[in-house]
């Protein structure tokens, strides 16, 4: 059992949990994730490790309540425990000194970008971060991102905070202004990641995205997380989750992510039977 030490609501439907998981906290690196199960009948839910503390043996998970399983997770309180937490899974981000690194986080994607941005900064890079959300109330980790970035741009779809528009806008401006960019890392909804890839592709700017296909085991056993990268199949859980954005088949990824949409509706409809209502 993995005890939840602290919970916090970061914005509407977005929660942050600090969870005791000493073995994982000791080992994990930015870019990695865990898989958890709230209870006996629960789904295996992959979540990025948004932060970790090796002294206290804790990891931070930031998640959005999108469906039954994440809502069920969200109902847990400090002092309660999560049944299973397995990890750290996936490969660590390749942190090095590149020069200027642009870290882009969209929506909940800001959470996984945060430890990566911090690590790039610590490795001596100039970090320009761009974070965005639909509106101000959905924006997360602004203070934290500001603290680990040389420059922070904020965008919202409705203009309620920062620049009105999309996260790719400040990126486009930087490119237009002729700023030298050595690496872009983008994490967020697939459409956003594809958007970023299309912006940087013509300029040959190295761009990394972190993919989140549907997973079961996270250890390379089920093959469910396969994505086409450079026309060969990769398993996101063991070969990724980070890949060269210019090689990823985003269309295929999007179709596969929607695989259980119908089932999820059934799940939501199921009223009394589904334990999250």
């Amino acid at each position, binding site marked *: 059992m993995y005890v939840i030490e602290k919970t916090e609501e970061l914005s509407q439907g977005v929660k942050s949990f600090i969870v005791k998981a000493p*073995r*994982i906290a000791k*080992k994990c690196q930015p870019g990695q994730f865990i898989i958890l*199960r709230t209870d006996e*009948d*629960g*789904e*295996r839910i992959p979540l990025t490790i948004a932060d970790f503390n090796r002294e206290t043996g804790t990891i931070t998970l930031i998640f959005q309540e999108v469906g*039954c*399983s994440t809502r*069920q997770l969200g109902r847990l309180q400090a002092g309660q425990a999560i*049944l*299973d*937490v*397995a*990890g*750290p*899974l996936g490969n660590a981000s390749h942190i090095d000194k590149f020069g200027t690194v642009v870290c882009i986080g969209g929506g909940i994607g800001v959470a996984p970008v945060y430890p990566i941005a911090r690590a790039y900064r610590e490795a001596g890079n100039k970090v320009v971060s761009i974070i965005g959300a639909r509106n101000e109330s959905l924006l997360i980790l602004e203070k934290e991102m500001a603290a680990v970035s040389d420059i922070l741009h904020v965008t919202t779809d409705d203009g309620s905070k920062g620049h009105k528009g999309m996260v790719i806008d400040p990126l486009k401006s930087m490119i237009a202004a002729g700023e030298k960019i050595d690496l872009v890392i983008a994490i967020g909804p697939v459409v956003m990641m594809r958007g970023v890839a299309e912006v940087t592709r013509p300029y040959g700017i190295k761009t990394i995205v972190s993919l989140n296909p549907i997973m*079961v*085991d996270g*250890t*390379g*056993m*089920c*093959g*469910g997380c*396969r*994505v*086409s990268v450079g026309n060969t*199949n990769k398993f996101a859980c*063991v070969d990724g989750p980070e890949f060269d954005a210019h090689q990823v088949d985003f269309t*295929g990824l999007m*179709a*596969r992510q*929607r*695989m*259980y949409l119908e*089932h*999820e509706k*059934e*799940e939501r409809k*199921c009223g009394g*039977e*589904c334990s999250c209502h």
Partner: protein
Amino acid sequence: MLMSLRHKMPEQTPDERRKNFKEVTLGYTADIAKAEADRCLQCKTAPCRQGCPVEVNIPAFIKHLREDRPDQAVAEIKQKNNLPAVCGRVCPQEHQCEKLCVLAKKGQPVAIGRLERFAADYGLSCDCEPREVGAEPLGKVAIIGAGPAGLTAAGDLACLGYDVTVFEALHEPGGVLMYGIPEFRLPKSIVRKEIDGLKQLGVTIEVNAIAGKTFTIDELFEEEGFEAVFIGTGAGLPHFMDIPGENLNGVYSANEFLTRVNLMKAYQFPQSGTPVHIGKNVAVVGAGNVAMDSARTALRLGAENVYIVYRRSEAEIPARAEELEHAKEEGVQFHLLTAPVRIMGSEKGWVSGLECIRMELGEPDKSGRRRPIPVEGSEYTLDVDAVVMAIGQGPNPLVQHTTPGLEVNKNGNIIANEAGFTSKEGVFAGGDIVTGAATVILAMGAGKKAAVAIHQFLQEKHAVKE
């Protein structure tokens, strides 16, 4: 007497069982078991034993059954086999003990597997005494992977007096027995009971612990005080065919399909959290046990037509005879001498059909089986909306990639000798991770041999120290 037929296994009728996940075969009653045991000739040479990878003393246990001592029968079996309730159900007996039974030559062999199952179900408990409370363990041994290989090694080492910890990546121990083989063939309660028996011996099982990720093998030695490690991580990496359309929605590896259903209880969705897409018409590619399990699972989940697509002929089908028989009875349809060419998809990215080509058998290939050759122009389309790829699995790679000094072959399997020694001192390996996908009993045999080797290794090591 000699020509008498073996006793039939009571089972659910095909019509009944294709609608439920309850065990297909019901097990011998005491009377049937006794009558079947009476067929055994108690041969002095006991050829049947030579067919058993763990050398169970078959005539001896059958004699106990015949004389109404099922408890002693199971004790006899357990001297060699820690998981008889599992083996009695899933071993390919027709290729092992029963093949060599003298009765096989003239009539039908003694139903050794069914008798083993009868005895094991009678006495689902441990036979060796746990280490006495307070007694100093002989040393600390880590087991990676809680499949049949790892669990067997763990049990034997605990019996010898070691402090054993099993590390398992998934949230439940059992390996393929838990996530792969379906409930209707191997009830999970049986696997759990056999695992509880190990816990009673003092074996610690730590789940959600992924060697190569949560910790490395070197860390177990250097930081956690383990003196030997056994790796039994199995063959869990699914193979795909590299044909067009394999990434469409509705295409599963057998591992994913079966894991969703067995381990994650997708058949209870939405009470359980994990869904599975079944489809109306399902093609399963392959014809091993894994394929039969996938096909029969799809039927039980409500698919109307389930096809096995296999590129060789019935004679080459690798599945256990009993499973093939059961699959046929339940209505699985066979497209033999047929290979998939391409998976067709709908606009929305879902499977809409499977294009196949007919095959004929040519000269024998390296494996000694006749090589299938496509018949030109014989393509046809199967109307399906789900495809399960059950064409084999490769070695789990996580441990090998993070353990310097551990040699692997070109396929990625760990290189270990008969006894289980690897190229790295103190590290042993066995089961599917060494042999490639094989059988439960071979994995257990490897676990047993490794336990002996580990015992010897540690005794020698300690003797040198003293």
